């Protein structure tokens, strides 16, 4: 630590520069998408590239919502957005409810096969989802779940629940068992002890688990592309592919839609962020 304190100014600047380069590498593609969404096609195709949009426009957004009187038919972006929202929100809520209970059980109870089961959940995450897409497709078509929101929700639950269990198990473990014991002696049932004591203390953990679950379902492309077909269930990331025709790619429209995909995720992250970094200090117990 002390070595850090007395670093030379040039070292500080070197570190800042390195950080800038690293961040730029991470951020420029995203920034480029945003910039592209707000400029006309001429600028997008320009060589050499135009960095700062010379003619900023919202036309790309108008167009994908079909608001331009032009000859082009708009895409059903509103439908995709609704599908994405319904699927993501539903699967997140269920995944958190079920995952929270599972995490609690793993953190608090002893039962046969606990370790194996926990390991199994983790291993299930190591299988790339796309490897399961063919069997999944066959099963889903037998069950009539192809191109349904339910079908997608079930898939995202299967992805998110093990992860939520794993995450919340860690958060519940940090809460001393004595707190629940104390609450039960104070007159709570086990259920009340959970909701009044352990749940509020695990809230920040649950919030981060919820973000992960939501973003997973919101951004997922590969499986959704296999299972969804129409405005019935097609989600935003899959909808992006509507902009590629046989010989052309509509970069402007695609970027505009990408911005629409990013915005809710950003908003959600900002809202829950304070929970993520909430310094809920565990002062109730020794330390």
């Amino acid at each position, binding site marked *: 630590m002390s070595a850090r304190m007395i670093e030379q100014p040039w070292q500080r600047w070197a570190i800042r520069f390195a950080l800038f380069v690293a961040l730029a590498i991470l951020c420029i593609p995203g920034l480029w998408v945003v910039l592209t969404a707000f400029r006309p096609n001429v600028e997008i195709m320009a060589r050499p590239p135009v960095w700062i949009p010379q003619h900023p426009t919202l036309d790309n957004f108008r167009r994908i919502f079909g608001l331009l009187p032009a000859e082009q038919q708009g895409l059903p972006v509103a439908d995709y957005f609704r599908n994405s929202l319904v699927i993501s929100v539903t699967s997140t809520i269920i995944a958190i409810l079920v995952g929270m209970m599972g995490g609690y059980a793993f953190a608090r109870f002893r039962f046969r096969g606990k370790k194996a089961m926990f390991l199994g959940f983790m291993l299930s995450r190591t299988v790339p989802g796309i490897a399961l897409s063919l069997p999944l497709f066959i099963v889903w078509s037998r069950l009539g779940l192809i191109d349904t929101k339910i079908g997608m929700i079930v898939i995202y639950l299967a992805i998110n629940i093990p992860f939520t269990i794993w995450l919340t198990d860690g958060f519940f473990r940090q809460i*001393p068992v*004595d*707190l629940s*014991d*104390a*609450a*039960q*002696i*104070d*007159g*709570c*049932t086990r259920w*009340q002890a959970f909701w*009044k*004591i352990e749940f*509020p*203390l695990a809230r920040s953990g649950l919030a981060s688990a919820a973000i992960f679950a939501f973003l997973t379902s919101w951004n997922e492309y590969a499986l959704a592309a296999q299972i969804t077909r129409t405005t019935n269930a097609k989600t935003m990331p899959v909808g992006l592919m509507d902009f590629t025709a046989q010989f052309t790619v509509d970069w402007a429209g695609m970027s505009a839609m990408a911005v629409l995909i990013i915005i809710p995720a950003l908003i959600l992250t900002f809202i829950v962020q304070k929970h993520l970094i909430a310094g*809920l*200090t*565990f*002062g*109730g*117990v*020794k330390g």
Partner: protein
Amino acid sequence: MAEVHLSKVVKRYGALEIVHGIDLDIAHNEFVVLVGPSGCGKSTTLRMIAGLEEISGGTISIGDRVVNSLPPRARNISMVFQNYALYPHMTVRENLGFGLKIARQSPAVIEQRVNEAADILGLSPLMDRLPANLSGGQRQRVAMGRAIVRNPDVFLFDEPLSNLDAKLRGQMRVEIKKLHQRVKTTVVYVTHDQVEAMTLADRIVIMRDGHIEQVGTPIDLFERPVNTFVAGFIGSPPMNQLEAMIGSRPAGPVAVLADGTELPLPPEFAGRVTADQAVIVGFRPENLYPAGHGIPAAGQTLDMDRTVSLSEPLGTETMLFLDFGGREVQAKMLNPRLVAPGERMPFKLDLGHLHVFDRASGKSLRA
């Protein structure tokens, strides 16, 4: 009225039996301390009384109710935990009032009872703080306050002082004793610290390996330990214990130590020991003292010159280490003067306070 009765209480985890059928009767308003080394089953016993652990066998009753299958909330008990277990997201006031709120008391009643408890424990200036912003001693007091607001039949304490530093521990010990004198309630208190047990208890229950070794008042246990374990556990520093053989002499039985020293036994052991019996002879450090530096013995003493190998000055007394009977023993020197290691001093052993235990069973041979 809240007596607590344990009858043949057993705790098993699978095939492993932790508590082996213990019996214990705790009187109304009695302060009972369960003490023993770690793993002796004392905390498990307490948690069974609390209802936090299921009972594998036997019965526990509080008052005249058998509580075996009652959940903790139905037992009208309160408990102070080793790590305090304050609710971190609630203020001191909310922590104190939580139990009453769960019991759906009116806000006015809660307010009044919480303030009463806060007054007793001196918590009034801290009411709006979170536990994280309290010192160890303050947290401890909040935990006790949370226990007393509900007017429980029985108070349970699970090693409440072991997270505090030595000075604070002494203060809180006094506060707990005062609290018990003020709020007369049945108390079951678990500790591994024999000083806490001695100073707080009306009666001490000494446990080892899931069995009760001895139950009695602190003085009882100190003066008449039933076996070598209790003799070694109660008292600080512990009793000196030496291996010996019984020899019979015209004047009565003697214990022959490893170095051949003969200790005439107090008359109460006559007829209770047999010649050539392998025994352990015990005496407390205060019964071995440099001549002129101890409580004068009422009866016979054994006088000897010994070399001091180490001295520990404690202010009002000095602990001396010396070789006696084939091993190192501790002596206590009152009105101490400076003693240099290697100094040779005349010592007196008060023979009236000898303890004799059977070596094989460890049991006291006292009547």
